[in-house]
């Protein structure tokens, strides 16, 4: 039942615009895979999903579901089901009617509809609410009805457009796991759109990062985290985000504040100008004694104590301090022993944890 999905140079240009909202997207999604499209707002992730759904015209390129070219097929001919951001439940129908509506349109027998709705309701704990109208449900219940409506269809592909964004933070976390495990159980190919990189990381088998209509990188969550293909992915994936700054290079060393950080040979070889963009994740910074080679001197500003973790927000000291792309350097420090405000701290980037990017193109540079 499950199938592959292929975007083949799929492009969407809105009428009256010259800039494509989605620019020749190439993407192959495996059978039963949970693929997350992630990116900032306006990156084209929703447009891509809607092109797959048939709600948006494809200006050029093709979209295939399995071997079938669906580029110009109507939504109902594509054998897909979609969960909308605001659920789009029909307000004048009961939960059961909402879930069974597609089957009713398709002319499925009444008793068959009823069994399938019951089944889905059971999976989603919706049995007591089947006769209610959506208005009488809580946000979480509505979300589950929207899921149920998709499940009942038994489609080849699930499409989900930010289905969790209308839930409160706590419910979002629990629903996140529910959806992910449900998808694994049903084994239906799923394309999931979100702007929240935590959702992307926790739910997806693979994650595709988009920006300005262009696909930046596709890979497993850890791939993206450990080996970002460019500066954008590096900064987008991970929370708190990676520290990124552009620094001057001389003699195989980058000048980060007052520190001289040694760069691998392959990196300096790949470099064209006298500057380099470097990135290092908060958890790869370790507090060291003053005077340690390559240690960056910072002044503590704020500490975020999360109990299990603590993050230190500090300002970079030294001549090149304005070269950071964010205001602070963030470092994970031992909880319950965080430096006080104003305290000076020396941080060293752990071995092999440095990411280097070309300052002009943003593309990743080899680090060894």
């Amino acid at each position: 039942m499950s199938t592959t999905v292929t975007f083949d140079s799929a492009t969407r240009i809105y009428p009256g615009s010259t800039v494509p909202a989605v620019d020749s997207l190439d993407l192959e999604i495996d059978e039963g895979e949970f693929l997350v499209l992630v990116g900032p707002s306006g990156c084209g992730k929703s447009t891509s999903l809607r092109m797959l759904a048939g709600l948006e015209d494809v200006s050029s390129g093709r979209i295939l579901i399995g071997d079938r070219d669906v580029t110009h097929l109507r939504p109902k001919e594509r054998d897909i089901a979609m969960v909308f951001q605001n659920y789009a439940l029909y307000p004048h129908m009961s939960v059961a009617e909402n879930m069974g509506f597609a089957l009713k349109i398709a002319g499925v027998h009444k008793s068959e509809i009823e069994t399938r709705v019951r089944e889905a309701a059971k999976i989603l704990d919706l049995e007591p609410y089947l006769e209610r109208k959506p208005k009488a449900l809580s946000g979480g219940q509505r979300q589950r009805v929207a899921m149920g409506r998709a499940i009942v269809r038994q489609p080849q592909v699930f499409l989900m457009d930010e289905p969790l964004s209308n839930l409160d933070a706590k419910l979002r976390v629990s629903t996140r796991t529910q959806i992910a495990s449900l998808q694994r159980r049903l084994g239906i190919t799923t394309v999931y759109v979100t702007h929240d990189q935590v959702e992307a990381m926790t739910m997806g088998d693979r994650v595709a990062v988009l920006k300005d209509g262009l696909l930046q990188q596709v890979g497993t969550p850890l791939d993206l985290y450990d080996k970002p293909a460019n500066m954008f992915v590096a900064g987008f994936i991970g929370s708190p985000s990676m520290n990124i700054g552009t620094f001057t290079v001389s003699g195989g060393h980058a000048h980060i504040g007052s520190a001289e950080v040694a760069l691998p040979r392959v990196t300096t070889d790949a470099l064209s100008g006298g500057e380099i963009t470097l990135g290092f994740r908060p958890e790869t910074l370790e507090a060291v004694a003053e005077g340690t080679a390559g240690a960056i001197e910072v002044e503590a500003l704020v500490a975020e104590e999360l109990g299990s973790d603590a993050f230190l927000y500090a300002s970079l000291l030294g001549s090149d301090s304005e070269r950071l792309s964010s205001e602070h350097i963030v470092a994970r420090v031992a909880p319950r022993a965080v430096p006080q405000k104003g305290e000076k701290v020396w941080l060293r980037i752990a071995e092999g944890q440095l990411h280097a990017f070309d300052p002009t193109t943003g593309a990743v540079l080899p680090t060894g």
Partner: protein
Amino acid sequence: MATVVVPEQAPTGADRGVGRGRGRGREDRSLLASVGLHATLLACVFIALFPVVWVLLSSFKPQYAIQSTKIQLFVDPSFDNYRHVLMDTSFPRWFLNSVIVAAFTMVIGISMSATAGYAMSRFNFPGRRGLMWVFLVTQMFPVAILIVPIYTIMSKLHLIDTLPSLVIAYCTVAVPFCAWMMRGYFDTIPKELDEAAALDGLGPFGTFWRVVLPLARPGLAVTAFYTFLTAWGEVAYAIAFISSDKKLTMGAGLQQFVPQFNPQWDLLTPGAVIIMIPAAIVFFFAQKHLVAGLTAGGTKG
């Protein structure tokens, strides 16, 4: 009137708590302000209802009392005037004609404005902007001037002196505004519902019929109300198009009671009352939705 206001005070005071919960009417309304509010509203209600009530009261009076200079609410109340209107004139026939014309105008007007409004709300078809403008311009051309050209067209279609001619004419009067209002209302119905319906396998007409229309009840109520009233109360077209007495509508027929300089008030007043009854019924069913229905149309231009 003031004595009626006083007992209203206690509930108003208690109501303030509710108002606070909703964040509305937060300012402490003093007793004086409350009295003022109710007094003003009662005065307005009085003005709103009075002409209607006065016509109603007069309709029960004998002719000499209708044209009396003394102010009397009841003078020998009887149904004589009504009997006279219903028995001795073609009024019942006119009433039936009006019902037919108004009902058809309502049904056709609703279907035309709902479909046109939906198309304008949802589809970006070529000519959409121009259509909006045309709708506005049709409101600007004086109906009184249009009567004669429309008469010519109707006579070419051999529709003169038939009720369909009126239905068609009334639709042209009512539909532009109604379509424009319906468009506003459809704009408030989330587009995702249409998309969900498309994924569920409905075509554009199915979506319109099974998903959007059931949700557009307030808009439809206003349209029904508006089209009905347009047809129900119209006089000029009816006089112009209908020549045989049997096919007149009430509005036009009633003009026969108004010979120059000497209106027959004893026939006019019961006639007016009878005309108002169906209008009141339609109004009663529509009024709940008027605010919601009209607003959506009004805010979205």
